[in-house]
């Protein structure tokens, strides 16, 4: 980011030497007044990578400029506007370099880890001799830290070597795209389902057998991109839940991933609303537990599956939603609100917007609430097969009731109805939706126990709770679109 100042305005720019985003925003700048002016409202605005500097008019004063990145990182710099004729230029922060140019966007969204290497592990040993030159803040037990860091790097790198390899990727990674329909009237099963049956219950039985083979469009020794060759023809049906697309992938360590494949996605950005965006899968090696006990036997490294769409603004927003960056998510939402909620171009994106509004709106705020609450209700009823819309609807009811004036107590049967409807709609597109669904079921089950309720609906709630618990154990952490990891069991 380069910041130059002139009296009365600043210029913002986010730069990357490996990635430009055309006219789509991939970050959010936040400008906050400092000192006596700190009570002024902060300014937030979406930022495009490698665009010309953006001029922002400001009153003279001291400000902090923060650049919020969808990976969860926040970069900050102070700047003075118009102080005694100052007209200086500050060089701020760049986007972190991607390990590979073809993965630049995925790195920015946080889907690719920057992994350790053996040279770093060995080189760290040099730290042992320099304890005296480190500032007191960092001095505490430096030798212990370094020893552990070397051990972590070494075990992580050894594990990486074991699970990756260019040849291994091209010869032993395969995937298929399967289409299915979820029957919302299917019964909620009793007891614990075997993994394969559980996946079928949530995703529906594939209608195209083994499925359409996925093509590896690019790869190296630790990353691969897979997509469906040719054009997917089911369009809107695939993003409203009438039909579902899933990718089944087996990685080089023979472990299976069953992922929501966001085919049929359309962009919701202001500049290109309604245009189709390609879906693909990124398979990448990650280290789940970098700091490990020496006796741990399991591999530190493993393959992770991350579905993605070539829609920079949607992926950026999802990054903010998952990393909990409220003001950045809100800035993106403000830009897209009309398209998200009124044009119904992309109900899954609208559901993501709903989750942001529900998560980041303070309980006491009332002014903006009325309109988006109705949007969420509409999303649920207009798309009766979309699980995410129903989950947002249930969450809305839990937080705000039906929006009636005055103090409104909740009707547990209404909440139950929304939650069971959501479960019956099948696997949520967004993994973000699963935790609130699980929490609402936990609340209902606790409430039933407290009030000693009985009956078929109570029994269904208990079964739904069990289904969601089982599901949660398969859900891959960190992916925006839901991915189930079924281990050695082919889904």
């Amino acid at each position: 980011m380069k910041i130059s100042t002139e009296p009365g305005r600043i210029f913002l720019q986010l730069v990357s030497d490996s990635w430009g985003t055309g006219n789509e925003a991939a970050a959010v700048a936040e400008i906050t007044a400092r000192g006596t002016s700190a009570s002024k409202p902060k300014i937030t605005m979406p930022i495009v990578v490698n665009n010309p500097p953006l001029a922002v008019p400001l009153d003279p004063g001291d400000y902090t400029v923060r650049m919020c990145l969808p990976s969860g990182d926040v970069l900050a710099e102070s700047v003075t506007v118009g102080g005694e004729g100052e007209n200086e230029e500050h060089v701020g922060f760049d986007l972190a370099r991607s390990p590979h140019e073809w993965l630049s966007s995925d790195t920015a969204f946080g889907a690719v880890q920057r992994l350790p290497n053996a040279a770093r592990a060995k080189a760290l040993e040099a730290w042992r001799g320099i304890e005296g030159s480190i500032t007191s803040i960092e001095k505490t037990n430096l030798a212990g830290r370094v020893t552990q860091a070397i051990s972590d790097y070494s075990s992580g790198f050894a594990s990486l070597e074991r699970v990756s390899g260019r040849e291994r990727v091209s010869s032993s990674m395969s995937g298929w795209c399967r289409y299915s329909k979820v029957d919302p009237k299917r019964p909620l099963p009793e007891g614990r389902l075997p993994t394969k049956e559980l996946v079928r219950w949530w995703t529906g039985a594939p209608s195209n057998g083994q499925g359409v083979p996925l093509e590896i469009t690019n790869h190296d020794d630790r990353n691969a991109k897979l997509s469906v060759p040719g054009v997917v023809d089911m369009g809107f049906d695939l993003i409203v839940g009438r039909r579902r697309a899933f990718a089944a992938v087996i990685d080089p360590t023979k472990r299976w991933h069953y992922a929501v494949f966001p085919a049929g996605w359309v962009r919701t950005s202001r500049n290109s609303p309604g245009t189709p965006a390609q879906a693909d899968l990124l398979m990448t090696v990650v280290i789940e537990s970098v700091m490990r006990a020496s006796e741990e036997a399991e591999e530190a490294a493993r393959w992770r599956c991350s579905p993605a769409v070539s829609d920079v603004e949607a992926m950026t927003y999802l990054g903010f939603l998952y990393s909990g960056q409220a003001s950045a998510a809100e800035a993106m939402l403000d830009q897209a609100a009309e398209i998200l909620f009124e044009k119904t171009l992309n109900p899954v994106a609208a559901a993501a917007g709903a989750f942001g509004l529900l998560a980041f709106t303070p309980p006491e705020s009332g002014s903006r609430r009325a309109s988006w609450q109705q949007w969420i209700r509409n999303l649920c009823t207009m798309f009766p097969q979309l699980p995410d819309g129903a989950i947002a609807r249930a969450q809305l009811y839990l937080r705000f009731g039906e929006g009636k004036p005055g103090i409104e107590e909740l009707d547990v049967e209404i909440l139950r109805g929304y939650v069971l409807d959501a479960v019956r709609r099948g696997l949520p597109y967004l993994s973000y939706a699963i935790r609130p669904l699980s929490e609402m079921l936990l609340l209902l089950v606790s409430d039933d126990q407290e009030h000693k309720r009985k009956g078929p609906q109570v029994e269904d709630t208990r079964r739904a709770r069990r289904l969601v618990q089982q599901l949660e154990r398969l859900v891959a952490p960190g992916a925006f679109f839901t991915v189930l990891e079924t281990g050695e069991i082919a889904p």
Partner: protein
Amino acid sequence: MTMIRDNQSAEPGTHALLIGVGDYPWLANGSKPEAERFSHPMKMGQLSSPPLSVDALANWLTDTNNGFNNPERPLRSLELLCSAATPFTWTPPGGAAIPIDRAERATAAKAIVDWKKRADRNPENIALLYFCGHGLAFSASQNSLLLGDFGSNGADPMVDAIAIDSLRLGLQRHCAARYQCLFIDACRNPPTTQFIDTFGDENAGAAVIAGGVKRTIGEKLAPVYFATGLASVAYGQPDQPSIFMQGLLKSFRGVASREAADHYAVIFEALAEGINKCVESLAFATVPQFCQAYEAGYPFALHRVRGDPEVIVKVLTKDEGLLPAAILSHTRQDTNEHIERPPQPAPWWVLLRLGKYAFKAVSAQGAALIGEASRDVAPPGGQVAL
């Protein structure tokens, strides 16, 4: 005795309960004879970090000069529970050592209920809970905190655990305090298949305070900060507070702060990112232990930073190949204080006070300039690539 302070005030304040479990007699290398120990310890043994972490946070909360500072909600009550290999005592500033009860099922349940009652005294209160010890994650929303007597009941081990997600919902339902802040410094590894086959997977522990459906749930701000992501370990170094605690305390010095009217305040929304930056700097890792927060997206102030905040800056060379032979330095522009780091292969993480700095990288051989930059640093900090 576990109550360190309770001024009985019903004015808005902060009520803290800190629970540390380092001694697990029924787990690996525990004090019980081997034949009596739990048959499914899942590689869990004794921990040295929890008592040190509880000690560090209690010191910070009670340090009126350099620690917790919230004029709107000062510390009203503090209770500690801690199991350690030798009986744990905590010494307040200028006071005598106080013996602290062990953190076991009965003591923890009572302490949680008592803490909730104290937090009930005013709806504007902050209820703050910290747990450090072993944990299990049955799923993303089914996390268990293992108490000191975990494993003593070989037939039903989860009775000696807290189902933290259920407790959190119960607190939202029943506790009057509008601000409920949970720090969970424990592993989130899944139980083994053998454990689930033997004991089932429905019981994640006792809720202690069970929750049901109530409209007021939505009126609470209840962020929870897990020390690590799902299916991951939280890390402690021998004889040091946990990595999470070190990162948390460091972030309280300003990395997790934002601008307020005439000061900087550590806010819920900035805390996870601040902790992550601090943890990354401690671990020398590009893939650090990752603090995962839920429902933390609010600018609510937990702590007021005294004076200018400290921010964390990662200094390196743009060409990583030059780093092992580069001398890095920063100079504070108003004082000309100059600090140098000799050539090293890892990036240089520095904690700097708010202000303008000149950063420079020169080659150790021949002192050729590799790069220089000027930065006016602000929380949380950033990266300077030279």
